[in-house]
C-alpha cells in the first residue's frame, strides 16, 4: 500500500488519527502540552472534516464524565489531557473501566505539581496505572498516529470493552515534527467497523452503574481484570491486522536482540538509546526494549526477551516515593521473580520535570553498565540520572 507521508507533531498525529476514525464525540479541557490536539480537532470539526460533537467542557473531570455518558449511549469518543488534568480525572477513570466503556484518550505526559512544571515525565499516568485502563506508550509521532487508530479497535473489541490511554511524551513527542505515514481515510474506516455493544437505549432498557455489595463487587472486578488481560492478546491481533505492516512494533519493541545488557524504557527515550547504541556499534552488548504496552503488562514477552540477560537496566521517568522501586522497575522485577530469574536489575530514574536526557548522560550510564557486566557486578543499583 502506498502511504502518504505527512510532517506532523505528535499532537497533530493524534488529531489526524482521530479525524480519520469516524468519532462521534470529542471533548477536552485545555492543558499544556495536550492543547494543540484539541485545537486541531476543533478546526477539523469546524470545517466539517469530522462529523462529531465537539464539547468544549469546563474541566477534565467533566470531559471524561461526558465521554462516559456518550460512550454509554453508543458513541465513539475521544478526549485528551496531561498532568493535573489526568489527576483531576482520576476518580472517573475507574468508573470508565468499571463500566466497561470503550473510550480513547491521548495523554501528552507531563510532570505533576508541586512544584508546578509543564514538562514531561510519567508521574501523571503512573498515578492512574491501576485504574483498569489499557495503557499504551508511544516512541514518536508515527507511533502516536498508529496507536490512536489501533486504540479504537482495541477498546471496542467485544473481548475488551475498556478505555485506552495512548501516552506520549509532552513536548519531545507532542510538539516535535516528524514524517508520519498515514493510511488512506477508507482504510481507517475499514479497520474500524462499528460494532454492536451494550448501551443506553429505550429499545432495550439497561441500568448502567448500579451499586454492588461485596460479593458482586469482587466478582465484577475479577471479570474486569480478565478483560484487561485479554486486551494483551487483542493488542497483538490488532497490530497484525493494522494495514501498515511497517508500524508493527509489538507490545515490547525490540529492534534487535542478543545483547547482554537489556535497557528497558518507555516513550521516546527509546529512540535516543537506540541512536546511541547504533552509532557506537554496541548492539552486541545492549538491547533496547521499549515497553509500548504498559497495561496489561506483557510479562511473558518480557521474560522471553530477558532470557539471555546478564544485566537489566530499567529507566523510569517517575518516582514512586517510599516504594521499593519506581513503577517500571517494580513490574520488571516482579516478572523476573515469578519466572525464577536472578539477574541484577539497575533502577534508573531520569528526566523528571522534563530534565533533558542527553547523549552524554546516556553514554555515561551505558559505560557504567558495560563495566558492571564486564566485571560481573551482581548487585542491583539505584541511579538518579540527573
Amino acid at each position, binding site marked *: 500500500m502506498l502511504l502518504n507521508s505527512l510532517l506532523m507533531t505528535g499532537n497533530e498525529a493524534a488529531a489526524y488519527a482521530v479525524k480519520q476514525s469516524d468519532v*462521534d*464525540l470529542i*471533548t477536552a479541557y485545555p492543558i499544556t502540552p495536550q492543547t494543540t490536539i484539541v485545537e486541531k480537532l476543533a478546526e477539523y470539526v469546524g470545517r466539517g472534516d469530522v*462529523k*462529531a*460533537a465537539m*464539547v*468544549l*467542557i*469546563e*474541566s477534565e*473531570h*467533566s*470531559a471524561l*464524565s*461526558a*465521554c*462516559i*455518558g*456518550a*460512550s*454509554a*449511549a*453508543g*458513541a465513539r*469518543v475521544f478526549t485528551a489531557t496531561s498532568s493535573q488534568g489526568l489527576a483531576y480525572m482520576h*476518580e*472517573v477513570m475507574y*468508573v470508565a473501566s468499571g*463500566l466497561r466503556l470503550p473510550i480513547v484518550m491521548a495523554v501528552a505526559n507531563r510532570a505533576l505539581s508541586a512544584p508546578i512544571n509543564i514538562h514531561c515525565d510519567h508521574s501523571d499516568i503512573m498515578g492512574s496505572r491501576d485504574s483498569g485502563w489499557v495503557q499504551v506508550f508511544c516512541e514518536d509521532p508515527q507511533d502516536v498516529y498508529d496507536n490512536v487508530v489501533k486504540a479504537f479497535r482495541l477498546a471496542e473489541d467485544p473481548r475488551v470493552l475498556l478505555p485506552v490511554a495512548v501516552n506520549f511524551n509532552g513536548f519531545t513527542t507532542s510538539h516535535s515534527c516528524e514524517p508520519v505515514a498515514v493510511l488512506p481515510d477508507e482504510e481507517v474506516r475499514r479497520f474500524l467497523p*462499528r460494532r454492536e455493544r451494550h448501551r*443506553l*437505549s*429505550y*429499545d432495550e*432498557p*439497561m*441500568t*448502567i*452503574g*448500579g*451499586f*454492588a*455489595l461485596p460479593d*458482586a463487587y469482587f466478582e*465484577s472486578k475479577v471479570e474486569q481484570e480478565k478483560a484487561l488481560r485479554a486486551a494483551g492478546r487483542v493488542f497483538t491481533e490488532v497490530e497484525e491486522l493494522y494495514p501498515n505492516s511497517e508500524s508493527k512494533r509489538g507490545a515490547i519493541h525490540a529492534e534487535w536482540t542478543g545483547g547482554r545488557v537489556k535497557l528497558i524504557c518507555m516513550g521516546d527515550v527509546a529512540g535516543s538509546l537506540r541512536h546511541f547504541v547504533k552509532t557506537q556499534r554496541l548492539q552486541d552488548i545492549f538491547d533496547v526494549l521499549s515497553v509500548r504496552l504498559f497495561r496489561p503488562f506483557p510479562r511473558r514477552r518480557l521474560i522471553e526477551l530477558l532470557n539471555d540477560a546478564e544485566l537489566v537496566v530499567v529507566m523510569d521517568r517517575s518516582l514512586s516515593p517510599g516504594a521499593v522501586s519506581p513503577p517500571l522497575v517494580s513490574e520488571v522485577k516482579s516478572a523476573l521473580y515469578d519466572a525464577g530469574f536472578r539477574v541484577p536489575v539497575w533502577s534508573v530514574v531520569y528526566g523528571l520535570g522534563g530534565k533533558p536526557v542527553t547523549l552524554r548522560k546516556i553514554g555515561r550510564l551505558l559505560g557504567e553498565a558495560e563495566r558492571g557486566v564486564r566485571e560481573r557486578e551482581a548487585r542491583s543499583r539505584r541511579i538518579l540520572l540527573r
Partner: protein
Amino acid sequence: MVSRLDELVGFEPLSPGHSACAGCGAMIAVRQVLLAVPQPYIVVNATGCVEVVTTQYPNTAWRVPYVHVAFENAAAVASGIEAALRVLKEKGLARDHRVVVIAGDGGTADIGLQALSGALERRHSFLYVCYDNEAYMNTGIQRSSLTPHGAWTSTTPFGKAGPKKDLIAFAVSHGVPYAATASPYFWKDLANKVRKALTFDGPTFLHVLAPCNRGWRFDPSLTMRIAKLAVETRYFPLYEVEEGKYRINYFVSRPRPLEEFLRLQERFSYLLRPENAHLLEELKREVEARWEGLVRLAGS
C-alpha cells in the same frame, strides 16, 4: 395541561420493590417527574439516595435506560449523552431520546455545581431535576448548602447557620429558557412544569422539595402534609421563570404560620427552643424576604 391522573403517561418507570424508606419524598418526586416525561428518555442519576435504593446489583428498579456515574458529574454525563445522541441520530446509529438528570441537593448545589454550570452554559438540551431533601441523607444527614437556617443535621448539632442557596437564581443566571420549583403535594403543578420544560430546546431546571422523614425527623405518614405546608407557609414558594419572566404559580396570600411546618419536624426542635427564638426570627425573616423578593420579580 395535565389536570387528571389518567392524563399522565401510563408507563411506570420504576418498578415496586426498591429499597427506599416508607414515605420517601424523593422517590415520590422522581416518580411524578418521570410519569410526566414522554418516552423515549434516558435517566442520568447522581450518586445519592435515589441511586442507592434503585440499583442494587443484580436488581434494578428502572424500566427505562438509566446511568449512574458518580456524585459530582451528572450534568457532564448528561452533556455527553445529549451531544452524542444528536450526532448518532444524524449518522443513523441511534434514535432520539430525551435526557432527564436526577440529582440531590448535594449533587446539585455543592459538589455538582461546576458540572451543572458548565452544562447550562453550553446549552445542552436536558431537564435537570434536583430533588432537594436539604441535607446529605444517603451518608447520614450531613448539612448541605441547601440545608435551611437553624436546622439540625448530624454535622450541625446546634443548627445550620445561614440561608440556603438560591438554586433557581443560579439556573436563571445562566439564561436557561425555563426553571421552576415544585412540590410533590402539588402534583399537577409538578407534572405540568415537567411537560412545559420539555418543550424548550436547551437546558431546563426543576427544583423539587423532597421531604425526608429520616433526616427531617417526622412520621413517614406526614410526607405529603409537610410538602404542602412548605408551600402554604411560603417556606418553599412554587414559581417558574420562563425566558427570564418570573411567575408565582401558587400565590400564598394568607400564609400559615411557619411554626406549623417546623413543629412537625424534629430537626427544628433546637430552633424552636425558647432560648433560640432569635434563630426562629432569622429564619422567618429569610422566608419573608424570599417571598417578597419573588413577588417583586414576578411583578404581582
